[in-house]
């Protein structure tokens, strides 16, 4: 057993070796997430997709809102923007319309995108703006202390619902599909291979792409509902995940009580994007002069 005197003195942060293949794209000092939270692996998945597509740091931009996942914009060395609460999609829309060649990714949490920014989300789906939205869904407001979120299931214990939640939750996949998104998928956060292929498909899609990533919060949600630590909670969610190909979006169940979470690609119907339509309108108006 090591005593306190034998522990070596903390080294300065300059001594962190930078050998990792992604060290040029990521700011390794800014990974401040809880040990075991899958937000970090979602960040590396996105970055390796950028590397695989051959995009340099001038070709893409990452926008994030407020919350645990909102902190992730600081982890990128590329252009990244930490916006106001719920307004990640409006900022990304402006970026995309100002520079249509840019690959814009919105990385935010369920509380940010669907509680305060729900209106922006459904209208971005309706307009079919060419951005990729990754929602890290942990069913709770993690950073502010574990309050009840619009994705918290019925009967779950949180800080603001000590006797169990009574509000029915959003089904994010059904909401995005009904609003008109042209690519909708849901993957568990530990299934990194399928998640990467899905992100690459979303980059190719000419339109609004929505990917929901399940990353359970063991610090707030798992502690209140007695689900154990990071590894035990991943086991718990792995027993409920059912990957069904070509499942219609209204059958995409997400229910912890039944023990059934349907994952897969639900909508893949590419249609014309918003910035293309604006360009056509601009050309038409200039011809009439």
């Amino acid at each position, binding site marked *: 057993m090591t005593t306190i005197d034998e*522990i070596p003195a903390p080294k300065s942060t300059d001594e962190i070796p930078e050998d990792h293949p992604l*060290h040029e794209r990521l700011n*390794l000092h800014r990974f401040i997430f809880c040990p075991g939270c899958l937000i970090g692996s979602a960040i590396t998945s996105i970055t390796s997709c950028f590397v695989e597509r051959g995009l340099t740091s001038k070709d893409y931009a990452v926008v994030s809102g407020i919350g645990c996942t909102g902190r992730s914009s600081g982890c990128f060395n590329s252009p990244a923007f930490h916006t106001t609460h719920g307004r990640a999609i409006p900022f990304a829309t402006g970026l995309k319309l100002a520079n249509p060649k840019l690959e814009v990714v919105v990385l935010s949490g369920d509380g940010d995108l669907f509680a305060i920014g729900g209106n922006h989300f459904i209208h971005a789906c309706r307009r079919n703006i060419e951005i990729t939205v990754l929602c890290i869904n942990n069913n709770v407001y993690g950073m502010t202390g574990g309050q009840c979120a619009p994705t918290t299931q019925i009967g779950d214990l949180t800080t603001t619902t000590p006797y169990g939640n009574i509000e029915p939750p959003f089904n994010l996949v059904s909401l995005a599909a009904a609003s008109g998104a042209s690519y909708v998928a849901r993957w568990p956060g530990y299934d990194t291979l399928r998640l990467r292929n899905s992100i690459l498909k979303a980059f190719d899609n000419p339109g609004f792409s929505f990917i929901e990533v399940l990353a359970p919060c063991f610090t707030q949600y798992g502690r209140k509902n007695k689900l154990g630590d990071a590894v035990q909670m991943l086991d718990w969610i792995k027993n409920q995940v059912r990957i069904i190909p070509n499942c219609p979006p209204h059958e995409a169940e997400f229910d912890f009580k039944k023990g059934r979470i349907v994952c897969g690609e639900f909508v893949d119907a590419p249609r014309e994007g918003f910035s293309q339509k604006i360009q056509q309108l601009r050309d038409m108006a200039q011809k009439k002069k």
Partner: protein
Amino acid sequence: MLRSQRKPILPPPPADKEYVVIILPEQCDGCELCVEFCPTDVLEIDMEAYNSRMLHPAIAVKPDECVGCQQCERICPSVSIFVTEIQLLQEESS
């Protein structure tokens, strides 16, 4: 299928590449996700070592058994582990 087109089922050829796991202990959070996801149990948490943030880093206890699936590299939330081929490392050093 014709008898002439049949191919015998043979065991897979021996792997010609050797892989090595590299861990950056200063960056590691000790969350045990790589230990859980490794298919051949190469990794473990080193309970006697500390990094500068007073956390126990992971360590490769059976490095010869690495099959190079890169599952640990993809799942690691703190960007502290990666897998390369030994040949590539030797070329870089020489």
